[in-house]
C-alpha cells in the first residue's frame, strides 16, 4: 500500500509553465490527483492561493529577481493572516550554493531540492515531509522547522531545554 493523496492539496509556485507541468506530471504519477495540484507563478499569486486553499504542501521555486521564493516562505511562516504557518515548504532552486541554502533555511523552509532533480529526489523530500517533520521553533527572529538537523555536541547552554517551552499543537 502506498500513500493516499486523495485529500492532499499541493501548491506549486514556479517560474515557467513548463516547469509547473513537469512537476504536475511527476506528482500525478506519484498518485497526487491532478485536481489537487494548483499552480502559481509569483510570490504574490502563490500566497494569495495559499490563503484561499490552505494547501498541505508547498513546492516553490527560488523565483529570481530576487529571492521571491524566500519571501513567500517568510510570508507563510510569519504573516498574521497565514492559514498554516507550519505547512511543509520545499524550496527548489538551480543552485546549491551555500548562501542560498542558508537563506532558505533561515526563511523557515522545510527542505531544499536542487534542479535538475530526479523523481526519487522529489519523492524523498515528500516522504520526509510526511514521516519526519521537525519541531517548529518560534522566536522573535525566526519561525520555522528546527534548523539543527544533526545531533552533534556543541559548546554552551542548550536553550531548547533551558529556556524554550514546548507546546503540542
Amino acid at each position: 500500500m502506498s500513500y493516499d493523496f486523495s485529500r492532499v492539496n499541493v501548491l506549486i509556485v514556479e517560474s515557467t509553465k513548463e516547469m509547473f507541468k513537469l512537476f504536475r506530471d511527476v506528482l500525478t504519477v506519484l498518485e497526487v490527483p491532478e485536481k489537487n495540484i494548483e499552480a502559481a507563478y509569483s510570490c504574490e499569486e502563490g500566497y494569495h492561493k495559499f490563503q484561499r486553499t490552505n494547501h498541505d504542501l508547498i513546492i516553490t521555486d527560488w523565483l529570481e529577481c530576487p529571492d521571491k521564493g524566500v519571501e513567500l516562505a517568510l510570508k507563510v511562516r510569519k504573516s498574521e493572516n497565514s492559514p498554516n504557518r507550519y505547512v511543509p515548504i520545499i524550496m527548489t532552486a538551480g543552485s546549491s550554493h551555500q548562501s542560498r541554502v542558508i537563506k532558505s533555511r533561515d526563511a523557515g523552509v522545510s527542505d531544499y531540492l536542487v534542479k535538475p532533480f530526479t523523481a526519487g529526489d522529489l519523492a524523498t523530500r515528500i516522504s520526509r515531509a510526511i514521516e519526519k517533520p521537525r519541531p517548529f521553533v518560534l522566536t522573535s527572529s525566526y519561525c520555522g522547522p528546527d534548523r539543527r538537523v544533526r545531533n552533534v555536541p556543541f559548546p554552551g547552554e542548550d536553550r531548547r531545554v533551558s529556556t524554550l517551552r514546548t507546546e503540542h499543537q
Partner: protein
Amino acid sequence: MDRIIIPKNVLKEKAGSGGFSNDLILEAQEKIDNNSVDFTLIAEKYLARIRASLSEHSKTKDCSHLCPSILGDLTQLRAQGAMFHFYSITHVTDIVLDLIDSLENVDSKIWMIIDSYEKCASLLLRAQVKD
C-alpha cells in the same frame, strides 16, 4: 514568547503510510526523461535578457555590481537545461555560476565571462547540442 511547537502532522493524517513504490518512482522518472518540452524557446528568453544586460553594461561600463537578474537567468538556465534534455546548457552554466560564486569582487572580467557564456550557450542551442 519563544517556544517550540510540535505541529499537528496534517500531511501524515491525510496521506497515511506506505511510501512510494520503486515502480512508481521509475514511472515518474520516465515522465521526466521523456518530456517533450522545447527548451530552445525557454532558453532563448533568458539569453535575450542576458544579452540586454550585456548591452546595457557596454553602454555604462559600470563593473561595480552584477545585475541580480543575470544571476537569476543563469540559475534558471542551469536548472531547466537538464530537466528539458539540454545537459550541455546546464553543464556550461554550472561552470559559469561556480566561477561567479568564487569571485570576491565584480570587475570587467566577469562581464567578459558572461559575454563568452552567452555566445557559447546560444551556439549550443542553435546547433541543438544536448549532451
